[in-house]
């Protein structure tokens, strides 16, 4: 439903009119994609460093409540960081390192529950709720798409 003639464009600066056109928007989208593609390419950290960094972020600092060993400067945290680095250098895979931590501190030693089963509900429940809400909202709004305002 376009307005005739002047409509929304009346009185707007030329620049806006040009930029509002469909072509300009396509150009904008293309530019954005290109920029983000360029920006996403960066020299990958060595796998060892990346793994150490990831493990440090999910292992809980033994002396803290919520911090990871990456975040805490507590002595126990620093000791554990050294150990993780040693384990990674020794060729242990992530799962083995996580198990070593759990063997010492219990399952609470990791900041993400590593188990399966019950622990999976931590992700499933919110995702299910969000999906259900999304589907519900989508169908509601879809049904409203065509109909005009209903005035009682």
């Amino acid at each position, binding site marked *: *439903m*376009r*307005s*005739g003639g002047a*409509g*929304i*464009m009346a*009185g*707007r600066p030329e620049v*806006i009119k040009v*930029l*509002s056109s*469909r072509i*300009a*928007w396509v150009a*904008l989208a293309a*530019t*954005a994609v290109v*920029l*983000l593609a*360029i*920006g*996403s*390419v*960066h020299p990958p950290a060595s796998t060892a460093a990346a793994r150490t960094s990831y493990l440090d*972020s*999910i292992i809980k600092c033994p002396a*803290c*409540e*919520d*911090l*990871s060993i*990456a*975040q*805490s*400067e507590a002595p126990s945290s620093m000791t554990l960081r050294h150990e993780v680095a040693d384990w990674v250098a020794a060729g242990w895979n992530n799962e083995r390192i996580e198990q070593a931590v759990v063997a010492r501190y*219990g*399952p609470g*030693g*990791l*900041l*993400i*529950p590593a188990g399966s089963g*019950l*622990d999976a509900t*931590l992700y499933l*429940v*919110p995702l299910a709720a*969000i999906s259900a*809400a*999304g589907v519900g*909202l989508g169908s509601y*709004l*879809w049904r*409203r798409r065509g*109909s005009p*305002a*209903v*005035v*009682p």
Partner: protein
Amino acid sequence: MNAIAGQIGVALGLVSAICGVGVLIAGIVGHRPQWLRAGPRAAWGLLAGALLATAAMEHALITHDFSLAYVADNNARATPLLYSITGMWAALQGSILLWALVLSGYVAVMARRFRNRASDPLVAWALLVALVVAAFFFGLMAGPANPFVTISGHAPADGLGPNALLQDNVLIAFHPVFLYLGLVGFTVPFAFAVAALVTGRLGEGWLIETRRYTLFAWAFLTVGIVMGAWWSYQVLGWGGFWAWDPVENAALLPWLCATAYLHSVMVQERRGLLRVWNLSLLIAAFSLTILGTFLTRSGVLVSVHAFADSSAIGPSLLGLFGAVVACGVGLIFWRGEQLRSPGSIDSPVSREGAFLVNNLLFAAFAVVVLIGTVFPLFVQALDNQQITVGTPYFDSMTVPLGFALLFFMAIGPVLPWRKAGSGLLRSRLALPAWAGVLVVAACVIAGVRGFTPLSAFGLAAVAGASALRQLVLASLAARRSGLSRWRAFIGRSNGGMIVHLGVVIVAVGLTAATSFGHRATFELNVGQTVSYEGHRITYGGASDFSQPNRSGVIGTVYVDGAPFHPAISNYPGYEGIGSPAVDSSVRSDVYLTISGVSTTGKGQASIGVVYQPMVMWLWIGGVITAVGALLAAVPGPSRRRRVPGHERASEDDQPDESGGDDDSGVPTSAAGAKAPEAMAEPVGAPT
């Protein structure tokens, strides 16, 4: 003496609340308006009781009256005056006293504000609900959480003093107070929501009338949360500001509901829609404040921050939470029929549609945070295992939601009511979108890499530009109407845009700090320099210090030549607590900690350095958000006094302008002004 005065104060408050409830019930049930008018007087008794109890407690703390168990536990002769005063809320019983004081204040304001309509049953019900809540908290103080318990036998010569972390930083005087002003403030709109449901008068503008209470409470809570983050950053020594700690989450949950509500209520005001949402959001916000209080006081969750548990407080608070939810659910269930809105959303691509999606996004955010917080308790109950749910989980779930919210922040202000055509959107979003692309380009050229931070910066730029666009248009419109240009910064819609700007700045700071932060530890001898992230760090030595309430080691570290003094403080009975020193600038923060100071040899020390870009943007953004909220509360001069009973249900077949509403004082179409030059944009029929 202090104990007696305090207990009299508590009793006075409790009795006033109960009497008030009784009088109001009698007035409502017996249809006696004169009784209803007497009800608000209870609020004054409540306030008097709270003030008396507070004065008694503060007096006891300042004069170090150790005959009170609470003072003996949280105060010492060596405690400085400021921390004696703040000792009132340093521990559990005192924090309930603070809650009761703030609540009494709000109830008194409510009683006074609505005194001319006190005989209206709806006002009476609202006051009743508020007094019941007040009675609960005073009841806690009269029973399980009594702050005025005296020590049997001899008073000790000296007290234990406050927790080390609570006498370290002046923020203890502000952060809890602002938090409570925020959290407790939600009681008032909640009371009106319940009153509206009970009386069935859902079509009137009561929620809209009390919107300002919610806005103030929201503003206080926002400031309180940002202060908490700042305190965590300045004091706790780990260089971060948010750890998804249960107590942090407890304050965030009501904030999320209130933010959603502040947007969603505009839809109700404009089109009479989303009533169930608004009522639910208010009930949720209030019940989550109670749940949050329970989580922080019952001790079921371990936290940096939780108060020591006490026997009966936990179950009482949990009981109140259950009762509030049951009440709310029951009322909505009962009144379901009458909650039907006189209209519906015409098109998904409209402001109503966007706010509906907004509600869902905030609800999803709250669900994620709540589940993450209580999940360890569920696992403990079902599996008897102790697990931890920390930052990795919360980040993975909330970052996508944050992106979605940024997106809606960008398009929301430009969406018209009812229906938007693509041409309209294309034209309104053109400049903001290009602003976003330019920002991304600038970042990429400057060497910033990473898909997530770049997208975040770009999206934030679009949202910021969109908000700026609204402000510029409002400014132009104001000038065209002959008003001062500054008119463009006050009023709901403009204040809201300033809030959006603040949030955008926070989002940018958050992204930069977390994506591009680095930390390292250096073992340095005195005089040794190391280079890190473009800064020269030199260790200048350390020396011992001693104060009445603590001793420790204070070091000197030079960052590019400027001295900073990280320290380790030893309070009696606690492991050494690190006090960091921060070299802050708008561009980045260099965060210094010191440990392992050896007094032998060359005096080597372990210097921790955390480099985080743009941390200051968080605090600046927080201030701007608070300022925006205050500006949003200012009514414009041409604002019509909204009297309940005149909710505008279906007045808007009028074409829309820039989408702002009429609180800014600028004549708009909705107010019926016929000044076409006042239109921010000339409007034809929406395409």
